[in-house]
């Protein structure tokens, strides 16, 4: 018997299992053949296509759409995967609305771009359903590369290196691969265990050994890896979470949003996951939206995103903001956390209104209180656990255009490395490009 939206406190099973399954179904259901044909027909096959330029992995989009149009989606999948080995996940999570679809000439012409993301999913799904891995390893080079972090950057690097004939060992502190694909992406974007299935498919290239439960700084050292391997690729992501620095931050019910999302992604039964009647998420990026929306989908009555600046400054794309609003999440702007009140456990959050003066956020003195049994912190992540030897830039591991760090033999990519947006697709590009540079460097 499901408890309801209005049940007080933090409760599991606010909604019936069937409703939860519905809520967490694909945000964008997969295309069927007819939908794909109609969508593909809209492509104008531009020259030096703007969509291709906008794609961080430079997928030949007109080519793959043409291949779908000509009736061979498996070729389309290969065209995609040639540039982006995680094209399946990227099709599900990429903010196409700010990348390829924003650049699409049909966005300019009619305000309705070609549905590139959904077409990409159609193509990659077709190939993966056939369980085809269309790549084979080159002859063994005898070289060994260590990859630290099995997220998109690390997996992308590992696949490319293995394909070129190198032996790769991928370490990860967790017990599963996938990084944020597995632990961080909203569940309704990665349904039916897709992240794990994609990793399994990727590993079919052969030559990649996974080593779980190994953390840099604890079980592994950079010096040790440099000694045992010919090259090292660091793709450790951003494990640190920024603190609120507000009173009551340590109360029960106050958590890092990424922990909540990880728990949700790994839950066997979502109806057993407790959610507050009133949930407040502090922050304005994609993580904040994911935490807020998923709390609502679990059955919370009131979910609010509290962001310290105005709508224009929000990190989450307009699409994501609208998604949150359409799911019933309230978006509050120009408020920052002052204190969390409660008797050991959070019951209320006190927010102070803000003004931006000379680019800086300042409290106005006026406050407002919201009921909140759960408060999620989503105000940014930071680098943690990096080796001391590597130089940092802007709080991230400093790398050049090819991914080289300040330490010889050591490359880095993904969220942990400087430059580039913190997106899955950017991580894949950086992993791939670093792998090419490592390969060139090792082969002389």
């Amino acid at each position, binding site marked *: 018997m499901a408890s309801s939206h209005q049940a007080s406190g933090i409760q599991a099973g606010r909604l019936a299992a069937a409703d939860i399954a519905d809520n967490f179904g694909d945000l964008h259901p997969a295309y069927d*053949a*007819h939908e794909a*044909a109609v969508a593909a*027909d*809209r492509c104008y*096959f531009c*020259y030096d296509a703007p969509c291709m330029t906008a794609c961080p992995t430079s997928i030949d989009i*007109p*080519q793959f759409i*043409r*291949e779908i*149009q*000509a*009736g*061979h989606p*498996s*070729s389309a999948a*290969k*065209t995609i995967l040639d540039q982006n080995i995680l094209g399946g996940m990227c099709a599900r999570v990429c903010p196409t609305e700010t990348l390829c679809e924003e650049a699409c000439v049909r966005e300019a012409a009619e305000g309705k771009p070609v549905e590139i993301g959904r077409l990409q999913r159609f193509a990659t799904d077709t190939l993966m359903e056939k369980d085809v891995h269309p790549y084979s390893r080159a002859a063994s080079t005898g070289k060994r590369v260590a990859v630290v972090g099995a997220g998109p950057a690390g997996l992308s690097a590992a696949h490319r290196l293995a394909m070129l004939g190198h032996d790769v060992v991928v370490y990860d502190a967790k017990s599963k691969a996938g990084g944020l694909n597995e632990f961080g992406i909203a569940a309704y974007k990665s349904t039916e265990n897709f992240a794990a299935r994609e990793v399994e498919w990727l590993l079919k290239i052969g030559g990649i050994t996974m080593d779980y439960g190994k953390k840099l700084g604890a079980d592994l050292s950079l010096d040790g890896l440099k000694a045992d391997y010919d090259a090292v690729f660091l793709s450790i992501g951003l494990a640190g979470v920024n603190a609120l620095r507000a009173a009551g931050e340590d109360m029960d019910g106050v958590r890092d949003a990424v922990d909540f999302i990880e728990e949700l992604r790994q839950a066997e039964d979502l109806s057993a996951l407790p959610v507050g009647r009133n949930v407040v998420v502090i922050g304005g990026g994609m993580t904040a939206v994911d935490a807020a929306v998923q709390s609502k989908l679990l059955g919370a009555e009131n979910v609010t995103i509290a962001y310290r600046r105005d709508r224009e400054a929000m990190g989450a794309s307009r699409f994501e903001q609208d998604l949150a609003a359409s799911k019933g999440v309230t978006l509050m702007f120009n408020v920052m956390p002052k204190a969390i009140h409660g008797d050991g456990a959070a019951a209320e959050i006190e927010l102070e209104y803000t003004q931006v003066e000379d680019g800086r956020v300042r409290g106005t003195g006026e406050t407002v209180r919201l009921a909140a049994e759960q408060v999620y912190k989503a105000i940014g992540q930071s680098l943690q656990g990096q080796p001391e030897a590597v130089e940092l830039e802007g709080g991230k591991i400093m790398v050049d255009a090819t991914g080289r760090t300040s330490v010889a033999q050591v490359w880095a990519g993904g969220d942990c490395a400087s430059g580039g947006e913190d997106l899955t697709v950017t991580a894949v590009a950086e992993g791939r490009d670093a792998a090419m540079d490592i390969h060139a460097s090792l082969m002389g």
Partner: protein
Amino acid sequence: MADLTTEFLGIKSPNPFWLASAPPTDKEYNVRRAFEAGWGGVVWKTLGSEGPPVVNVNGPRYGAIFGADRRLLGLNNIELITDRSLEINLEEITRVKKDYPDRAVIVSIMVPCEEEAWKAILPKVEATGADGIELNFGCPHGMAERGMGAAVGQVPEYIQMVTEWCKKYYSKPVIVKLTPNITDVRFPARAAKAGGGDAVSLINTINSIVSVDLDQMAPEPTVGGKGTHGGYCGPAVKPIAMNMVAEIARCPETHDLPISAIGGVTTWKDAAEFMALGAGNVQVCTAAMTYGFNVVKEMISGLSDWMDEKGYTSTQDFIGMAVPNVTDWQYLDLNYIAKAKINQDDCISCGRCFAACEDTSHQAIEMSADRVFTVKDDECVACNLCVNVCPIEGCITMEQVPAGQIDERTGKVVSDEYANWTTHPNNPSATAAE
């Protein structure tokens, strides 16, 4: 990935996709770009005799027929053969062939219908190192008025005569390009073979007027207030080309004559279809002019993918495979019975099948009050018009009625015996059944 290497008249190219003689193959610049994009070969835009070249109208030179969303379906051109000097063309051909030894470079030629004219130009073309020549007997405009182009292509005797000259004065393969502006393409094809031609290529463009400017009251493209008939090409002409290729491929006298197919090839499938009907390779023009040279990439990946799926390792494995199944109408099996079937899960209730069938065909589709469309087997003749007007691919299918079951429309039991019109009792000139 399947090996697309194709040998045509002993000329090897990495794939069967050549560019046809047209603006895309006019200059070295274009041809190099084409080869960089991956085309297997080109037929250089038609050369004329030494001396002042022809002059084109400034423009416009093209008219078009569009499908939905301005998708180009047919292109009409009033452009002529090369308007650049013979010398420059020959220099460029020599350079390009040298730089791309593994790609086919064929030179298209159109000179007056006199032996001396051919005798003069052929050694110069031979000297370029090109792999072969193509005789342009096809231009329906501009040159025909001067006794060249289609004016030759419509007269089999001239085709044979000029082809003989070419075999006399040129040592490499001679491809004869045929015009479709003719009653029966087998005549020119036989003439080309009789003249010693090594292959035929077809089709050249079709005489046409695509549209009329209703303000200027003149055909389009309108030049200075007037228009003229032009050469039509593109996806719209593929069916005409396919039929002519098939006719030559199955005609006993010409079935061993290699064919280079031209006419609306846009995707891998178009190429595969032409090749199944007997073409050794295909030449593309409109698709490249519509989308740029990168169209070849899909052709390559698509053909390769399909060959892998079917287990073909070489294009030789499937060339001509459909030819034995091209027959005359009177030999089609009148005992083959099918019925249309509408898949209710896929149907979106647009009613287009009903409109077509009820108004213009056999009234074999029923429309219920709540817009459910079903086939009436007792009226359905399986004409398959409904399939062709339905916007959802695969929603309506033709299901064969197995032998032994009753065809509800005729009340007769379906027979598994082959029987055609030649023995049908309704046929006044029926031959007696054996």
